[in-house]
């Protein structure tokens, strides 16, 4: 059974890895404890592996790393500077939607009655004889639809612009 609670284990491993000779009690314990011997063997292997010379691999050029770091700093500064603008885009969108909602709530009755006049007119135009609708209702309806479309397109443009940055 392997044990990880040998009190001597840390000292034995440390001394072995450092290449120091073990004192008598530690050496005696090591001789009698297969678990500690195994641990020492593994630690010594890692140490040997580290001491094996690596291939003469050229390290990355420090000048390139320096240059990359400067670039990163600039990007970071740019991002910090543009963060309030990014936030404002969302505030703009929220304000636009809130205004639209307020307008709809405020003019709901007018819009509903205008809509009621226009829809029968369209149905009638489909069947045969066109009936004249109230000109103001048409203007309101077209204007409202156009403003909603413009807002939607603007929001979409900002969203796509934001993600592509």
């Amino acid at each position, binding site marked *: 059974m392997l044990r*990880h609670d040998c009190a001597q284990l840390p000292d034995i491993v440390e001394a072995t890895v450092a290449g120091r000779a073990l004192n008598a009690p530690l050496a005696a314990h090591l001789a009698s404890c297969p678990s500690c011997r*195994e641990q020492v*063997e*593994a630690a010594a292997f890692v140490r040997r592996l580290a001491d*094996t010379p690596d291939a003469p691999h050229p390290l*990355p050029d420090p000048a390139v790393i*320096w240059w*990359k*770091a400067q670039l990163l700093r600039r990007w*970071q500064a740019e991002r910090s500077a543009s963060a309030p603008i990014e936030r404002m885009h969302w505030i703009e969108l929220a304000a636009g939607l809130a205004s639209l909602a307020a307008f709809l709530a405020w003019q709901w009755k007018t819009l509903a009655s205008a809509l009621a006049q226009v829809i029968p007119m369209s149905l009638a135009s489909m069947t045969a004889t066109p009936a004249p609708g109230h000109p103001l209702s048409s203007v309101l309806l077209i204007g409202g639809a156009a403003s909603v479309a413009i807002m939607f397109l603007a929001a979409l443009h900002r969203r796509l612009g934001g993600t592509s940055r």
Partner: protein
Amino acid sequence: MADHAAAVRVEDVGAQTQADARAELLTDYEFRELYAEHARPLWAYLFRVTGNAADADDLLQEAFCRLLAAPIATRDSSQLRAYLFRTATNAATDLWRRGGRGTRRQEPVTEDAAVTASHGETVALKRDMARTFRELKPQERVLLWLAHVEGSGHGEIAGTLGLKPASVPVLLFRARRKLAALLRKKGYGPGER
């Protein structure tokens, strides 16, 4: 190479150090000194834990870029070294989590080294050593290297790997036991080289 560098998040270092009024950016001269001192051991560590020279290059660059990208409060070499190893280990962990190249593109890491080595180990034995080490899990390789090559304490290793300090000795014990079993399986007896 560029994908790692692009993934560098400089806020990490910035948030850590900008609060300190004494924090300053490293100068070109300071950086070059630091690089000369720590780049080779850091690369060797990354090479052994990733098993791949290209990944080791990328992670080395990432660690130094992060160090350079924000002001730092200390110029103490050992603290900066610990920071570099921690940052590089985190970046390597991210790479493994993304199912990165470390697990797919292992190189025959010591063939060239064996040819140029001055002492008398055989080519096959050296290749086997690196291969045996790579059979461990990434976290086990990191644990063993930091503990037995870098000489990091349990607290430092715990900080690097995001573990509880109390669990480090247990994990180290298990990693050594696993490595010892692999060594036995491969026929490395005690004292064999």
